[in-house]
């Protein structure tokens, strides 16, 4: 009985938290489903202007096939390419770096970790202006590499920290056993350490991907048209005239970019939780 009571208590306590986090998302979905007239007219909506009486897909056709197509579809591609490449490079680099930090004893080991931490504390906005000037000189402004590089910087410290905690809890004996069994250092890493670290690498990759995916500051300042990602592109949506707000289209685009995130989290939530807690709990 006692456990049942606590179960229901916990469920009751989580309801407000779920409402708190879910309502904004449902609101965006609801708004994206409203027609232009419904956006302005309360009579066409239920629950006090919340949900449209008749669902309209106009906003979605607007961003995929309509007037906003040229702005949104390339931006979506840019987002996908930039984030995947940045994540891949940053995770590969972080894996090697974290492995070295966890296993080897070399001078400057602490310095690397502290530098990584300091870099991630540095306010992003402070770096944008100098980067903007630098990028113009180097002809990196408004190019995909011009975004990938800052995203690597943004995600690398985070990845190094998560992964080095992860490597540290893989018993060293495992690797030594492999070496005694006849493996070279590289074989021991590939055949024993890497498979064991896979959940950690995966978690890190997902977190790095989200960080890049959700970034607005770099994208809006370092790109103009040819390399804009979705968060920045949303900002440059305009209505049919300067008197109409592109609310519906923005919400539809926001829903579209949220979907991959939600799918990833739902698919891999177990792994993410395991990856995040594994440093703390001895398993």
């Amino acid at each position, binding site marked *: 009985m006692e456990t049942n009571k606590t179960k229901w208590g916990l469920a009751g306590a989580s309801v407000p938290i779920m409402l708190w986090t879910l309502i904004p998302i449902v609101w965006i979905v609801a708004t994206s489903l409203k027609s232009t007239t419904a956006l302005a007219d309360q009579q066409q909506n239920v629950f006090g202007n919340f949900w449209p009486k008749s669902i309209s897909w106009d906003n979605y056709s607007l961003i995929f096939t309509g007037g906003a197509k040229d702005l949104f579809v390339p931006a979506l591609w840019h987002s996908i390419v930039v984030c995947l490449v940045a994540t891949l490079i940053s995770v590969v680099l972080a894996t090697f770096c974290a492995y070295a930090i966890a296993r080897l004893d070399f001078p400057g080991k602490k310095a690397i970790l502290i530098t990584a931490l300091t870099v991630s504390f540095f306010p992003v906005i402070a770096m944008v202006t100098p980067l903007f000037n630098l990028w113009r000189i180097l002809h990196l402004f408004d190019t995909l590499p011009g975004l990938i590089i800052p995203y690597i910087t943004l995600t690398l410290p985070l990845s190094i920290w998560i992964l080095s905690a992860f490597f540290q809890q893989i018993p060293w*004996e*495992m690797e*030594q*056993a492999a070496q*005694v069994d006849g493996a070279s250092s590289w074989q021991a890493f590939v055949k024993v350490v890497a498979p064991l670290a896979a959940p950690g690498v995966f978690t890190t990759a997902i977190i790095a991907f989200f960080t890049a995916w959700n970034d607005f500051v770099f994208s809006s300042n370092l790109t103009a048209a040819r390399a804009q990602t979705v968060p920045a592109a949303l900002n440059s949506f305009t209505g049919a005239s300067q008197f109409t707000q592109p609310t519906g289209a923005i919400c539809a685009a926001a829903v579209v970019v949220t979907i991959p995130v939600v799918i990833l989290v739902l698919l891999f939530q177990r792994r993410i939780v395991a990856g995040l807690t594994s440093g703390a709990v001895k398993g």
Partner: protein
Amino acid sequence: MSSIELKNIVKKYGDGFPAVNDVSLNIADGEFMILVGPSGCGKSTLLRMVVGLEDITSGELDINGKRVNDLAPRDRNLAMVFQNYALYPHLTVFENIAFPLRLAKGKHSDNEIKEKVNTAADMLELREHLERKPANLSGGQRQRVAMGRAIVREADAFLFDEPLSNLDAKLRGQMRTEIARMQRRLGVTTLYVTHDQTEAMTLGDRVAVLKKGILQQCASPRELYEQPINLFVAGFIGSPPMNFLPARVEGNTLKMPIADVELTGELAEKVKGKNAVIVGLRPEHIKDASLGDNISHGVPFKAVVDVTEWLGNEQYAYIPFDSDPSLQGTLEELDRDLDGEGMRTQMVVNLDSRSRVREGQEADLVFDPSFMHVFDPESGDCLTRDDDRAAEIARDNEEQRKAALERAKSRESNAASQSAEPRQAS
């Protein structure tokens, strides 16, 4: 198959402290050598230097007469069982055992690997667990998988790093005999690290006792027990441990807290000029006089028994005594070296289970002074050690070891020819 030779091996860490200091050992082909000592004596470091996981600061390590100091672990062809087994959690038991074979690319075909793994699995009774993951196995099964991984290699030697310390007492006993059986059957050179003197005594052909990185004595278990070279070895080997009693030298008499002993001959010469010595008496060499066992030249004494422990087949009696202040320091240091708690000075007597001695009683006890060990308190050297007798024990032990290996080999070839015959017939 192979011999391992350690010549003046030294290991120094960054702070210059020698964890292993000038150790020389010669492990013969097929021999079971034990490294034993209290925690921090450098035994594991020594093993890790042999396998190549630690650098050798100075000295030479030869395997089969070839210097291997600078070879990587994978080039030394040794198999090791780790204390926590170090099984690969992402691989099945089969793949764990097959791992070393798969690494030797191109050497073994898939069928060969399968056959070798199955043979090893049969030997260790792991056949029905081959498809399971290590996480789902019990401690003893994991231990066997780790041994399987070592067997399948056909390595030059096996190295064990405290392989039984993670098991409970009952399983430890079973696995101990299992390891002994496997070693004899395969006839493979083995180096085994433990802190448990029982494991050392039961498993080893020879036992190397280490203290603070220095080799004290390397000999057969029997020689260590009967002819220890110094105080430390005498105190470390044997359970319950040897009793150390302070004794004053007065002429030809040793005055101990419990009794006085007349010395004659050689020993009397050796203790001449010393004020005090330490006398070592094994618990089983002290008897209950009232049982009527006839001990010629026995030294009788009376003592009040503090506590008794009756175990069925034997009985321990504890007798407190007052220590000599001049030897207190030496005895306390010895106790610390042996990982002891230094609680109180008491003597343990291993009595026959028929004995009716109970707590608080004054008991009539007797011991044979010829079993007595006498140690120099300054150097710790054993003054009663008989080198001729020790050499005799060593010779006898070596003969026995070779005979046992021979028997195991002939048994093995008999079994092989018997199993081969029906195969040919079919």
